[in-house]
């Protein structure tokens, strides 16, 4: 199924750095979840993070928009270093969209209201303008006809596409995807991946935590493999899949590719 995805052209990347993580450590109590994470992401770059569950993939990307605190190291997002200042965190979150495994749409609002909410309340756009923009993005994820429905009336794949549209309505510079297809029925995975590919074609900076290796192969500039809180391997997909270095990566790949 992922083979049918079209390949976005790999445009040359600019040298502008969008995300810089330096020596990030995080503990949950005594449990060391992230161990010295170093990661630099350039503008327009697309990164796929994979690894076994509990390896710290989600935690890593959740640190980028500060949904998780970290105890040491530093993260610079779009030129701003994350601090404890609430206003500054909100500032950065405006520029960083996030798509969750369980969609997290707001069930008491219609699809259109879900999308227009943040532009109205955070960007202070007039309602008309925000709704027009929301419709535009709903068209882009190919579900404008569902705009007046409530999330509970949509299929999982449709809900996830609404979630993507909702993030895009904030015109983010970076999109984070936290296992966007893991909670979906198999026949709905493709529609979501297709939407993500379109996004990639437009040059969005993306970090995706996913097990969709087909997506990684066709879309990613780099694939990162994490295990027990560490980045084990970091390579362009063609090398990552054909010529992995570490034994741990090889074992992981053999488990997810041949079953």
């Amino acid at each position: 199924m992922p083979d049918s995805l079209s390949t976005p052209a790999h445009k040359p990347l600019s040298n502008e750095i969008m995300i810089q993580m330096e020596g990030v450590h995080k503990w949950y109590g005594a449990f060391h979840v992230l161990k010295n994470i170093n990661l630099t992401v350039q503008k327009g770059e697309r990164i796929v993070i994979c690894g076994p569950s509990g390896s710290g993939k989600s935690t890593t990307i959740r640190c980028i928009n500060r949904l998780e605190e970290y105890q040491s190291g530093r993260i610079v997002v779009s030129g701003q270093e994350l601090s404890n200042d609430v206003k500054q965190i909100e500032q950065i979150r405006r520029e960083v969209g996030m798509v969750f495994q369980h969609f997290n749409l707001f069930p008491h609002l219609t699809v259109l209201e879900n999308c227009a909410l943040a532009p109205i309340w955070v960007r202070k756009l007039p309602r008309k303008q925000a709704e027009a923009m929301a419709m535009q993005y709903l068209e882009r994820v190919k579900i404008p006809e569902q705009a007046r429905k409530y999330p509970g009336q949509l299929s999982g794949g449709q809900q996830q596409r609404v979630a993507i549209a909702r993030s895009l309505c904030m015109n983010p510079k970076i999109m984070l995807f936290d296992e966007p297809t893991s909670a979906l029925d198999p026949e709905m995975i493709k529609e979501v991946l297709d939407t993500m590919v379109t996004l990639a074609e437009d040059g969005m900076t993306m970090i995706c935590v996913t097990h969709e290796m087909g997506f990684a192969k066709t879309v990613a500039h780099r694939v990162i493999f994490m295990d027990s809180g560490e980045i084990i391997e970091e390579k362009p997909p063609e090398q990552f899949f054909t010529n992995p270095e570490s034994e741990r990566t090889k074992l992981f790949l053999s488990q997810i590719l041949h079953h």
Partner: protein
Amino acid sequence: MAEAHIPHPDLPPPVSTIGVIGWLRRNLFSSPLNIVLTILAVYLLYTALPPLLRWVLWNAHWSGDNRADCPADGGACWVFIRVHFEQFMYGFYPDDQRWRVKTALVVLILSAAPLFIRSVPGKIKMRLGLSLLAIYPVIAFVLFKGGLLGLATVETSKWGGLLLTLVIAGVGMTAALPLGVLLALGRRSQMPAIQTLCVTFIEFWRGVPLITVLFMSSVMLPLFMPAGVSFDKLLRALIGITLFQAAYMAEVVRGGLQAIPKGQIEAAAALGLGYWKTMGLIVLPQALKLVIPGIVNTFIALFKDTSLVLIIGLFDLMNIVHNATTNPDWLGFSTEGYVFTAAVYWLFCFSMSRYSHSLEKRLHTGHKR
């Protein structure tokens, strides 16, 4: 290609499962135990209902204006209620000023009516509701209390009857809900000082009986006040009841807040919404909707608890009826008085219950995520 599948035609259902007979079988005679219970219930109705109806309706006395019109023949004396009706509604509010209360009631009914009309858009309802909440108490207060715009002053000690009950209940509800919401949010706050403050407040007020609160407000509080400073007794009772009910409300709302998945808050945060916007736009609308039954439960309890103000000498509906039953001219009609009181309380509480029911249905947009 195989032949197209033709489904069998639908057969009519067995006669015993539909219509009146089906309903009876399903609901009243579905098992031996149910059959016994049904027969028992019918027997109880048969023995209890006729005497009750005889007392309430058939043998009851409706017309007249003194107790001589109510011979003791096993019927209720509704004359007692009729004669005292005005007093039950207004307490000792001066006769010639009662039009002010009626005006306030009419204003309330007219201005609140659109809230209950289904075709009015939600946004207008919201605005109207909020402005009513802000403006109506002022209008009502000016009308009731007077002393402004050429209206004669009517001291709060003269307010009474159903009017007083509704004032206490209305103020209690409209003040306790927002305060309860703030307390609930505070209790779940990340800031230890705010959290401790809210927990202490809630646990203190939940831990004392309302009667104690009312006693304290009316007897003890004046002792701590400097000489010459005195609060209105009604105001003190209102504050006591509000704080007391807010503590209960806080716990009800907290139940709702805890039912909202963390993902909702994270999604709001990821969009750049701050704490108050996240709470106001995402969490509270869902949480409050979930706990409508609990909120209304607290409202109903509050409504009935207003009758406790009788112990500090306020003449609410309950107390004024009680007062009338001790009137030497009308001794012996306390049953009628209390039945009437119960009916009035029931009417209000039941309406609240039905309204909350319809609200729940209307706001249901599916809790699937």
